[in-house]
Every structure is written in structure tokens, then in C-alpha cells.
């Protein structure tokens, strides 16, 4: 097991290196260049001078190696847009995204899995149809529309929830205040996640319920609940765990649209803005951070398989 983990971590380092190179090449290939240089107040000479000052007129390999060298000192560079250290920006924003993403994911799981299981067990019943219909609606709804609708209904009209942001400005830290601000953005993400997760769980459960060993268990005379709990659920959870492995990176990289509409200071907004404005250090830093988390979560997922499925032996 230990050998497996070590091997995986080494693979991860290679993978991260490749990710950084690809990201670097992609962002530099994007036309337009850093938005700060698109300032119409700058003359062509000034643009050339600033490029030189920022090291952007060096050949790409030189720039990449410089970045790598700084990375080895823990320095991810300085953002062009914010004149702040990239590490500071990420350090400030990542927790916000993790909170939002984490809470949404946990809520989604707590709702979706039971819902999916029940739906699968009572296939084609009224409940199943409602759930299927609702999840279909959830998947089809545009995020920005749904988000702004929530704001209009709950914040502007009913005034029971805040219009945006992570906390009330001027107040000190208050858990209830933070929770109130979390409700609408989390709800947006949950509705999104819920739809997919419920359907996956339902499908996985339906597949499992059709397996021979379930029929055997029933034939043995086991009660329905016991069949589900002891045999079906664990097996159905395997594909679900796979899906969760996809959700974690999503949660970490941040839901850019949700964060934008709710003015939530997270990684999604940071990364997308940086990409649009070609803020190279931030793009590289954010991508690398997300990549690290994705690699780690993928490792955890595989370890989880080892727990869930005795047939899987991790070597």
C-alpha cells in the first residue's frame, strides 16, 4: 500500500510538470497578450519597454524556466492585475472556494444519494417520475439565470437573505452572518450538482439491482433493506465515488459563474478573469494549485476504491 502511494505521488509530480508546461504554452498562445498592455494610453514604445521590464520579451523557454526557478523558492510571481503576490491571492481565495464548494458538495451528496437510491428502488413510481423530472430541470437551467433569480426573489423582494458577498461589511466574524451569505450560492451549486448526482446514483443503483447477486440475496430470503444496505449500496457507490472524483476538482476550481453573480471572492472568478486578461502568473499559479488538489483527490478516490471494493487491490 505504501509503495503504491509513493509511486502515485511520483507520477503526480511528473503529471504536474506536464500540466504546467501545457498551461504555459496555451496561455501564451492565446492572442492579445496581457490586458494591462492593451491600455490605449500606452504608446507602442512604452508597451515594448514594459514587456521588457516584465520579462515578457524573453523567449518562452527562458520565461518558463524563470517561473520554475521561482516556484522552487515558493514564489509564484506577481499578478499583473493586482500587483499582489500570486501566493497571497490564492491563499486569500482558495478557502472561500473550498467552503462554498465543500458545503455544496456535502449537501449534494446527503440529498442526492438517498434520493437516487429511493428513486431506483421505486422505479417508475410517482416519486421516481418527479425526481427524474426535477433533475432534468436542474440540469437544463442556466446557472447565471438561476442565480440571479434567487437573488431577486430572496434578496431583493423578500429581503431575507443578502444580495451577495461572503459577509456583511463592517461586522466582525459571525458564523450566522457567513452562513446566511452562503445559502444562496450554495443552493445554486447544489441544485446543479444534485441533478447530475441523483441521476448517476439512480442509474448505478438500477444497474446493481439487476445483478445476479442481488437476486441471489433476495432468494436467500434477506429482507429488502438488508439487501440494499449490505450488498447493493456498496456496489452502487463505486461509480458514484468516481463521479465524486470529478466533483472535487470542480468544487476546488470554483464555479466561476456562481462566484461572479454572488460576488463570492473565490478561485473560479480569479482564474477565469486571469485567463481572460492574460494575467500569466495568476493563470499558472491557479492552474497548478487546482492540479495539485485534483491529483491528490484522485489518489484519495483510488484509495477509497480499495476500501469499498475488496476485488480491487492496489499495487
Amino acid at each position, binding site marked *: 500500500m505504501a509503495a503504491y502511494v509513493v509511486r502515485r505521488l511520483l507520477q503526480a509530480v511528473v503529471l504536474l510538470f506536464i500540466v504546467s508546461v501545457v498551461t504555459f504554452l496555451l496561455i501564451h498562445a492565446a492572442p492579445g497578450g496581457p490586458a494591462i498592455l492593451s491600455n490605449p494610453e500606452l504608446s507602442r514604445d512604452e508597451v515594448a519597454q514594459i514587456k521588457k521590464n516584465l520579462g515578457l520579451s524573453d523567449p518562452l523557454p527562458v520565461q518558463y524556466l524563470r517561473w520554475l526557478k521561482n516556484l522552487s523558492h515558493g514564489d509564484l510571481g*506577481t499578478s*499583473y492585475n493586482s500587483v499582489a503576490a500570486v501566493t497571497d491571492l490564492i491563499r486569500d481565495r482558495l478557502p472561500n472556494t473550498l467552503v462554498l464548494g465543500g458545503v455544496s458538495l456535502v449537501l449534494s451528496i446527503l440529498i442526492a444519494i438517498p434520493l437516487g437510491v429511493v428513486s431506483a428502488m421505486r422505479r417508475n413510481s410517482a416519486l421516481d417520475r418527479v425526481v427524474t423530472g426535477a433533475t432534468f430541470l436542474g440540469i437544463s437551467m442556466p446557472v447565471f439565470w438561476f442565480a440571479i433569480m434567487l437573488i431577486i426573489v430572496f434578496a431583493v423582494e423578500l429581503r431575507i437573505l443578502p444580495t451577495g458577498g461572503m459577509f456583511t461589511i463592517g461586522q466582525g466574524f459571525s458564523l450566522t452572518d457567513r452562513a446566511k451569505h452562503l445559502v444562496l450560492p450554495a443552493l445554486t451549486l447544489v441544485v446543479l450538482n444534485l441533478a447530475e448526482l441523483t441521476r448517476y446514483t439512480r442509474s448505478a443503483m438500477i444497474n446493481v439491482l439487476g445483478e445476479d447477486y442481488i437476486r441471489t440475496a433476495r432468494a436467500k430470503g434477506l429482507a429488502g433493506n438488508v439487501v440494499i444496505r449490505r450488498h447493493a449500496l456498496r456496489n452502487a457507490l463505486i461509480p458514484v465515488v468516481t463521479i465524486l472524483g470529478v466533483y472535487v476538482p470542480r468544487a476546488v476550481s470554483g464555479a466561476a459563474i456562481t462566484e461572479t453573480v454572488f460576488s463570492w471572492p473565490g478561485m473560479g472568478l480569479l482564474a477565469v478573469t486571469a485567463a481572460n486578461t492574460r494575467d500569466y502568473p495568476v493563470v499558472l499559479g491557479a492552474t497548478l494549485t487546482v492540479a495539485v488538489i485534483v491529483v491528490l483527490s484522485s489518489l484519495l478516490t483510488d484509495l477509497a476504491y480499495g476500501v469499498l471494493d475488496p476485488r480491487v487491490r492496489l499495487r
Partner: protein
Amino acid sequence: MEIDRVLEEFRMAGTRVSRRDLLRAAGVGGMSAGAVALLAACGGTATPSTSGNSNANASAPTPIPQTSILGGSATPESNAAAASPTASTSAGTPIKGGTWRFAIQSDPVPYPVTLPNALPDLLVCKTMYDGLVKYQLQNGVIQVVPDLADSWTANSTLTEYTFVLKQGVTWHDGQPLTADDVKFTFDTELDPKTNTSSRGNISSIQSVEVVDTHTVKFVLKNPYAPLPVMLGYNRWIVPKHLLQGQDPNQPTSFLKNPVGTGPFKFKQVAQGSYLEVQANPDYFGGAPFLDGIVFKVIPDGNARVAQMKSGDIDFTPVDTSQVSAVSGLPNVTVRQAPQVQYEYIAFNHKDPRFADVRVRQAFAYALDRDAMLKNLLKGYGSVANGPISPLMGDYYNPDVQKYSLDLNKAQQLLSDAGWKKGSDGILANDKGDKLSLRFLGTNIFPLYPLDMVYAQQQFQKLGVDIKLDIESWTVNNQKELAFEWDLLRSYWITPPEPDMYDHYYSKSAANDWAYSNPQVDDILTKARQEPDHQTRVNLYHQFQQIVATDLPLIYLYYPQEVQAVSTITHDLPVMGYRDALSWMNKVWLSKS
């Protein structure tokens, strides 16, 4: 006497066509899903005046009282007497207290010298720092008034300017403001190692000399009338004692606690959420009424409207399509404010197909600008016939050639210039060149795709084949500078100065259209060096007549800025918010 003549001159400050602002923190406006959609809501129902001069303040320019820029202790308060009407119906006496909330699109950098010089940075800096001069709207004309400077004079050839600073001004940390700070600021900005976008406007400065603790002398490379105006354009003085020795591009310790001389001082910041400033009771212009200002980061346009509705913010500029969403609310006033900006369609003058002025005029005759103003801008603005707007007072010349919709005339002009419709319906000349054009514009402004499609429609009626090339901001800029276009939809925001030299002079680096007219070159060179006010006025009147006939560009409109302001806000000057924010010490909030 020299001083009188020079002061006359400074009534309508310098000439130097200002450069554009970066209108929106680049990219954010364009990124979230429905970035264009996020600014699009139902059409507006507000009814602004749609007459030719819809700018309510654009009355015939009246002589400006000399006291506005005279020496002595001319304070903003004394100028307020002559100021035009301010925001909501001011209910008398200002009340102290309250926090004003202003929506910005992205995190601001509260330090004015270096890039990104983005819009949120400028807005925050306007409340925390001061410049030597600033702008005020008086009787429909934007004037330069003293700020940190008490008075200034120039020599007869306009190659040396001496500014006298106000006495007793202190930094937020208590240290006194001196001429050393002014010299330090300008030296830093002029240093090529400093990454800044604001150097262009002061490129005529050769050196800054400290004459005594409160007197600074600017020595220029060439005679330059516009200097005083330029010194007020997004330009602030920073403290030498705190910035000396730090990297000007990344003054990390200064950024943790930035210090200025302005009416508000830095209080706290939360990355991605807000920046808060609090009142500076020792502000030289009088302690502000407000307790503080919160700059809230709200990237989404619809969210800003929602927060305006719920009373969570006090101010946001709105797009014309958002007007109906903020109209008719009990807690919001929608108002329009003048700004020195003109919108245009440019010709690529490197292209020989545009060499004949009749061709350019034909394009101008193909557009119904009144209809465009009414339907696309919802009336928020006025039709432009040249680059100098009525906001510049007597420099504005209304007696120029105008172009109203006349497709027949347009067709005739093209025919006279040798363009006939070929078998494919596209105009061609006898050399075989076709009028098949690439029309470049950016989608960061929702207006552009709209009027570009309209223009395409109209031009195609004449037999011109138009391919629309609508790009993101950065790609648009890249293509623009590389002349990868035939027609260009763009704009200039300028300081209130008629000097258009940088854009219209044939060899200027910022002449993005390759326009070249020796007559114009001659007039612009003379005018920016001319000390006598009336002579300058005459020169610019001539300039406007020439460009209206020669049409380097098709002038479209002077757009008004549409603002949503909370009804509890009082005495916010009715100017574009960039300028209005330099007067935050006068703003107060009523209880309800």
C-alpha cells in the same frame, strides 16, 4: 499683463487630446456567461431629452469667473458657488455620518503610479489622493481648478510652469506635503523602469525642479499649453518619505497601508470583497461629511442592479439596457452625467480606397445618427460632428459640415469617385479594387455590435461589402495597432482639453488611423504652443471645420454616462463618476 493673459488661457485648459481610459477592468465585463447578457436587460423607459444638445448642461459657453483658477486660497468650496446643480434634490443642510457604498467590478489597487491603472484603481485613488489640479463642471463647461496647487504661472513661451503648493497640507500620517513629494512623483512616473500608462500625457516634461518647499517648476521640452489640464488627468501626488527606496512597480509595504493627502484615508481591504476608506478629518479642503466609503467588488452587472434595488449600494453606472431595471424605484435616482468622450467609426488611411474624401463622406451620409442615438443609446447623449464637445466651452465650434441620412447623395458621391456596382453587387473602381471591407470592433461594450450591425446594413445598401470582425478587448487592441482593419469602431475619452495633436498629427505615435493632413498638422502644432486664448480658440475652430469636411473619422456621438444613485446621496456633482469622485468630501447622506 502676462499673468492675466496666462490665466485667461487656463480658463479652458490645455490641448492635448487625452488618451482613453481603460473603460472597464479588462476582461471581467466580458467573461461571465452572458457577459454581454449581464448588461442586457429590457430597454429603458426613462425619457432623456433627445434634441441635438441633449446634454442639459451644454448651454452656450459663458465666460468663467476668473476666481475659479486665480491664486490665493481658492478652495473647492468657494468654487461650489459657481458649480452646476448637483445630484438629488438637495434638502438643505448636510448631515455628518454614514458610509457611502460604491460598486466596482474588480479588486482595486490603491496606488496610482503604476499599472494596471485600471478603472477601479483610479476610482479609489480619487478619494485617497490629490493632484495638483482637478476638474469641475461649471455652467456646462469642465474647468480646471486648483487642488494641491494654490496657483500657477507659465513663462511667455509656455516652456516653464511654476506651481505654488497650498500651505499646511499633510499626508494621512501627519507629515507635511512638500515640493519634494511632487518632484518624486513625477520623477518616478517618467522613469522608464516604472511600468505606467500615464506617462504619455506628461511626455513633454523634461525635468521637475524644487524651487522651495512649496514651489515646483516644470521645465518642458517644447512649448506646451495643455500642461495644467494634463496634470489633473488621473494624476496624483504620492508621498516620497514612504515610497522612497521601494520598487515603484511593487511597493509591497506601502500597499499594506497606502497614504495620501485626500479627503479619505485607507482603512481596510478584503481581497475580492471590498476596500474601505474612512474620513480624513484633517483634509485641507475641510473634513468630509461621510464617515467613510466602501468600494464593494461586484463583478456582475445584474448583481449590481440587484444590490442597487435592495439598497445595498449607493452608486453604480448603468448600461442603457439596464435603465428600466433601476427606474421607478423609490430609493434610486437615475441621472445622466456629461463626460468628455466621443464615439466614432474610423477609416484606415493607409488604404488607398479611402483616399478620396468623397468616399469617406459617402459613408457618413449613409448613417442616420439621430436614429442611432435614439434607438441604440436610448437618447443618452448627443450627435457628434467633431472631436471637440460642448463641454470644452468656447473651443467648441458648432458651425461645421454636418451629415444627415441621404443614401442617394452617398451613392452619387461614390459614383463620382469612380465606384460602380459590379456584377456581384459590390462597388468596384476601374482598377478592379472592390469596396469589400473588414469592420473591426470590440464586444466589451454592448453598444458596439449593435451600431456596427446597423452600419453594416446601411453601407451594404450602397454596395459596400462589410465583414464584421467583433473581438474581445485585447485582441481588438492588438489588431487595431497592427492595422488589421479597414473600418474601426472606437472612442476616445479625453481630458477637457482640445489639443488633438497626439491622435490627429500625422506622425504621432497614437495616431491609430494613419491620418495625414498637412493643414491639420500645422494648426495642431501651432495651437498647442499658443499662449493667447482667443488665438487658440480660432485655431481649434478651424481644425474642427477641416476635420468635419475631411472626415478622418465618421463622428457618431458624445455619450452621456447613465448613473443609478441612491436617493439618500446628496451633493454628488453631476459629472462622470471618474470626475465626481474627486469631490467626495462634499457628499453627504440623508437619513432616508
